C-alpha cells in the first residue's frame, strides 16, 4: 500500500515507504535486530547507558530530558522487578509522529525497547497506546507476536539468558494519560491522574516498581545509536540537541505531513521548503513549533533552529515537534478559544489552579471572541496563567498557561481589536 503522507527520510523513517519493513523478516533483512544482538551479547548495561549518555539523545516526548541519564536513575540493587513503559499515548494536538513509528516500524521500536530493557535491567515493558490508535496498536501487537515467536522476546531473549516481556496496553483517549505518572495510574487501571513527586517513577513507578518511561520515538533512536555509535548520532542535529526528529507539520501549508529532519533545522525551512509554505498566496501569521501546549511564534520569528537551546530564547520549546501553521486569516482569539477549551476539557481536576484556571481562561477567551471582553481581561488572562504556571503536580497547567502567554505576547493586537471593535474582525472560519 505504501505510505501516502509526505515525508523526508533520515534513519528513523528510511524504510517507511517499504511495506515489508513492518514485518520481522523485512526488518531483519534491512539490518534490524543487529543492534539488540550487539547490546545483549557484547555490551554491559553500563556500557549501553554510557553510550546513550554520550550520544546526547534527549527524550522526544516533549520535555527533552536526557535519555541516558534517565536510564541511570533506575536503582541497581533492588529486589523488585523493574519495568519500562513506552509512552505511545501521543495525545498532544499537532503531534502525530509516534503513530507512523508504530505503524510503519514496530520492530524498530521493539528493538529500542529491548536495548533499553537490557540497559536498565527491566523485566517487562508496557507499551501504553493512545486509545484512538487502533491500527498502530494492532501493528505493534503483530510485531510483538512475531518477536515472541522468533525468541526475541520472552524468557531467553536471543538465547542470551535475558528475559523480557512486552505488553501492549490501550488507553482510553485522555490527554492527561500522556503525562508519565497519569499514564502509570491509567496503566494500573485507575483514573488517569498524575502522581505527586516524590516518589519519582524510577523509585515507585508502575505497580509500585522502579520504572522508566520513554516516548516511542526516543526508543526508536536507540538501535541506530548502538549500531552506528554516538559520534554518528551526533553528526545530526546541533551540539546540544543531537539526532534527527520527526516533525509533524499541519495547518495552513501546501504539504502537511511528517518530516524527519535533524534537530536544529530552521522552522522557516520546515514550513516553507519542506511543507511548501502557505497555500493560495496567503501570508503566514504564526506557527506553534511543538504541539499545542508550546507558545506560538509570530511570522517574524520563524528563523529559529528547531532545538530547545534556540527556541528557549524565543520563549517557546520544541515539545513534540508538532508544527502547526496558521495563515493571516486566523483569528488568534479563536485559537485561544480552541486551546482554552481543550485544556479545560482535559484537565484531570486534581490541582486547584489547573481545574479552575483552565475553565476560567476559556470563558474569558470566549468572552473576548464574542466582543464582550475588556482591556482588563487581557491582563487577567496573563495573571491567571502566571498563577497556574509551575505550581501544580504535573506540567499540564504549564501547558495550558504557556499558549495563552504566547498568544498575548505576539498577538495582543488581535485581542485589542476584539475589545475595541466589540466583535471578532475575522471571518468565522470554524465553529467555536
Amino acid at each position, binding site marked *: 500500500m505504501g505510505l501516502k503522507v509526505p515525508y523526508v527520510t533520515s534513519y528513523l523513517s528510511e524504510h517507511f515507504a517499504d511495506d515489508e519493513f513492518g514485518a520481522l523478516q523485512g526488518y531483519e533483512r534491512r539490518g534490524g535486530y543487529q543492534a539488540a544482538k550487539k547490546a545483549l551479547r557484547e555490551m554491559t548495561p553500563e556500557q549501553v547507558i554510557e553510550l546513550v549518555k554520550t550520544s546526547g539523545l534527549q527524550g522526544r516526548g516533549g520535555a527533552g530530558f536526557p535519555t541516558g541519564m534517565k536510564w541511570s536513575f533506575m536503582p541497581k540493587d533492588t529486589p523488585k522487578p523493574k519495568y519500562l513503559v513506552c509512552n505511545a499515548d501521543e495525545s498532544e494536538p499537532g503531534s502525530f509522529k509516534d503513530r507512523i513509528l508504530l505503524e510503519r516500524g514496530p520492530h524498530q521500536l521493539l528493538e529500542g525497547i529491548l536495548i533499553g530493557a537490557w540497559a536498565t535491567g527491566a523485566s517487562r515493558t508496557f507499551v501504553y497506546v493512545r486509545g484512538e490508535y487502533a491500527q498502530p496498536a494492532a501493528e505493534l501487537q503483530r510485531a510483538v507476536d512475531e518477536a515472541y515467536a522468533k525468541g526475541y522476546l520472552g524468557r531467553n531473549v536471543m538465547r542470551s539468558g535475558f528475559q523480557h516481556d512486552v505488553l501492549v496496553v490501550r488507553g482510553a483517549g*485522555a490527554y*492527561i494519560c500522556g503525562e508519565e505518572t497519569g499514564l502509570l495510574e491509567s496503566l494500573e487501571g485507575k*483514573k488517569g491522574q498524575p502522581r*505527586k513527586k*516524590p516518589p519519582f517513577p524510577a523509585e515507585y513507578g508502575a505497580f509500585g516498581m522502579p520504572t522508566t518511561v520513554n516516548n516511542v520515538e526516543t526508543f526508536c533512536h536507540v538501535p541506530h545509536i548502538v549500531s552506528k555509535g554516538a559520534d554518528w548520532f551526533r553528526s545530526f542535529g546541533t551540539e546540544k540537541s543531537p539526532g534527527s526528529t520527526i516533525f509533524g507539520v499541519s495547518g495552513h501549508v501546501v504539504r502537511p505531513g511528517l518530516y524527519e529532519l535533524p534537530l536544529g533545522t530552521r522552522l522557516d525551512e520546515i514550513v516553507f521548503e519542506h511543507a511548501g509554505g502557505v497555500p493560495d498566496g496567503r501570508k503566514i501569521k504564526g506557527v506553534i513549533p511543538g504541539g499545542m501546549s508550546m507558545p506560538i511564534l509570530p511570522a517574524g520569528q520563524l528563523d529559529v533552529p528547531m532545538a530547545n537551546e534556540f527556541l528557549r530564547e524565543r520563549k517557546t520549546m520544541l515539545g513534540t515537534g508538532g508544527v502547526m501553521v496558521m495563515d493571516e486569516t486566523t483569528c488568534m482569539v479563536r485559537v485561544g478559544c480552541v486551546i482554552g477549551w481543550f485544556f*479545560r*476539557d*482535559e*484537565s*484531570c*481536576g*486534581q*490541582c*486547584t*489552579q489547573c*481545574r*479552575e*484556571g*483552565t*475553565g*476560567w481562561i476559556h*470563558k474569558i477567551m470566549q*468572552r473576548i471572541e464574542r466582543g464582550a471582553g475588556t482591556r482588563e481581561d487581557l491582563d*487577567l488572562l496573563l495573571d*491567571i496563567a502566571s*498563577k*497556574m504556571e*509551575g*505550581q*501544580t*503536580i504535573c506540567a499540564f497547567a504549564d501547558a495550558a498557561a504557556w499558549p495563552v502567554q504566547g498568544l498575548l505576547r505576539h498577538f495582543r493586537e488581535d485581542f485589542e481589536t476584539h475589545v475595541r471593535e466589540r466583535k471578532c474582525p475575522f471571518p468565522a472560519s470554524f465553529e467555536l
Partner: protein
Amino acid sequence: MPRITVDGVELEASAGRTVLQALDDAGLLMNGIEIPHYCWHPKLSIDGSCRLCQVEIEGFPKLQIACNTPVKDGMVIHTRTERVKRAREGVMELLLIHHPLDCPICDKAGECKLQDYAFDHGLKHARTVEPRRARKKRVDLGPTIVFDQERCILCRRCVRFCREVPKTGELGVFDRGERSVLETFPGLRLENDYSMNVADICPVGALTTKDFRFKIRVWFLDDVPGVCTGCANGCNVFLGTASNKVYRYLPRRNDAVNETWICDAGRLSYKEIGAADRLRESAVRGEGGRLEPASAQDAIARAAARIRRLVDSKGPGVVAGLASAHATNEDLAVFKRLLEALGTESAGLVTLRGAADALLVKEEKAANATGARALGFGDPRPLLERIRGGGIDALLVMGHDVLDPSLLGGTEALARLDTVVLMDTHHSDLERVAHVVLPARHAAEKLGTLTNFAGRVQRVRPAVEPAWEALAEAEILWRLGVALGLAGFEGRFDARAVSKELGQRWPAFAGIDWESVGDDGRLLATLVAGGSPAAGTR
C-alpha cells in the same frame, strides 16, 4: 535527625517526614507557623493537590508544597515571602470562582477553612463576571451525611478517609477537570461506623451531619474538652455547648487514643446527656410503698437510716455495693472508701460488653471499667449469687446495667432486698424495687477522671449543669458517709480533694489526679489486667 529552619525557627525533624509533618510533629503547625492547607490532614495519606501549602525552599527554583516535600538537613524554608503570598492568593481566588459566596446561610460558617483562609490569604473582591457553576444541593449521601456539591473544593479528604480509616471506600471523585464531582460509587451509600468524621475533616460546608446541621451557629458554641463515654476507648472530644445544652461531640485530637476520629455511635452518645429519660428527681419509697419525691438531702438521710438500722441489727456484711463502669475514678474511690468504712467486702463491678472493631470501638461499653478494676472492684457474679441466695439485705447500686439479661435479667432478685439505694442518670425498671432513688450526674456534668481500656486516665469537667438537683455519685456517697458518721467522711464534699487522694490511696494511681493528667491524659502507674470476668456478655 535533620535540622530545618522555618521562618527563622530552627527545629529538629524526624527523617522521612515532610515539611508539614515535621511542623505538625513539633506542634508548630498553625500554632506559630501558619501554612494554610486543605487536602493535607495529619492522619490521612498525602494528596498534594490543593496546592495551598506552597512554600519557598532555598535551593528550589519553584515553590514546593510543604505537605509532600521531605525534610533534608539544613533545609531553609520561608512561608511568608511575596511569592508564597501570591501563590496562596492564586489558589484562593481560583477556589472561589465557583464557590457560593453565601456564608451567612452556610452551616460551616465560623469554622470554615475557606472562609478563614479567604480572609487571611485571599483577594478582597471577585474578578469573575461569569455565572457560578450550578451543582446539586442537599445530596443525601447516606444515613448521616448531607452533601452540597457547590461548596465542595475537591480536597478529597473524605475520599481518602473512607478508603484509609474505616476502609469502606464509598466515596470517589468522578469525571475530570472542572466537571469533577464527589459522589458515592454506584450502588453505594456513605454508610459506615465512622461516617460522620467526613464532616469534621471537610474544610468547607460541603459535608454536614444530619444530626448537627442548622441546629446552632457554631460561634455560639463553647468547646469544652471531655471524653466520650460510649465505650472503654475513651475517645477525646470537645463538647459543643451553648445555653447549658450539649449540641455535639467533636473528636478532639489525641494521638495516643483516637487520633482525630470518633465512631458515629460515640459521637451521637451526647444525646444521653439531655435525654428525656434523665432521672430528674430524688425519691424515697413511702409508707404506701410508692416512690415519693424528696430532696437529695432527705433521700440520703433516709438511705443512711435504713443502712444504719441493718448494720446495727445484722452487721455490715449484709450491705453490698454494685459499682458501675460508667462512674468516674473519684466516684468509685469514694464508693470503695464507704464500703470499707462500713466494714463490708461485698462489692462488684457491672460493665456490659458488646461488639468491638479494629479501629476505636472497644468491647466494654463503659468508659471506666479499667479504673474500677484498679480501684478493687471485680467480678460481680459472687455478689449476685449472694443476693439471689438471700445473703444481702441492702444494696447500693450505681446505674441499672445490672438488669441486663447477661446479669440479673430483671428486678426479681432485688425485689426481696430490704433496702436498695439507686444512684442513676436515667430512668429504668430498677426504680421499681429501689427504696431510695438519687439522680446522678453524667460524665459531662462533673469533675473527675476516667481510665480507658489501656489504662490512660483522662479527665472530664462540667460542660453543662443539670437543671435539676443531681449530684455526682462521689458526692452522694460522701454525704451518705457523713450521714452514717463513718470515719474519714468529714466536712463538705470536694471533688478536687477527692481526686487528689486517688494517687495517695491507690498505688495504681500514683502521681495521678485531675490536675496532673491534663487534657491529654496519663497512663496508670500499674495496670490491672483487663478483660476481667467482672462483666456479662451480651
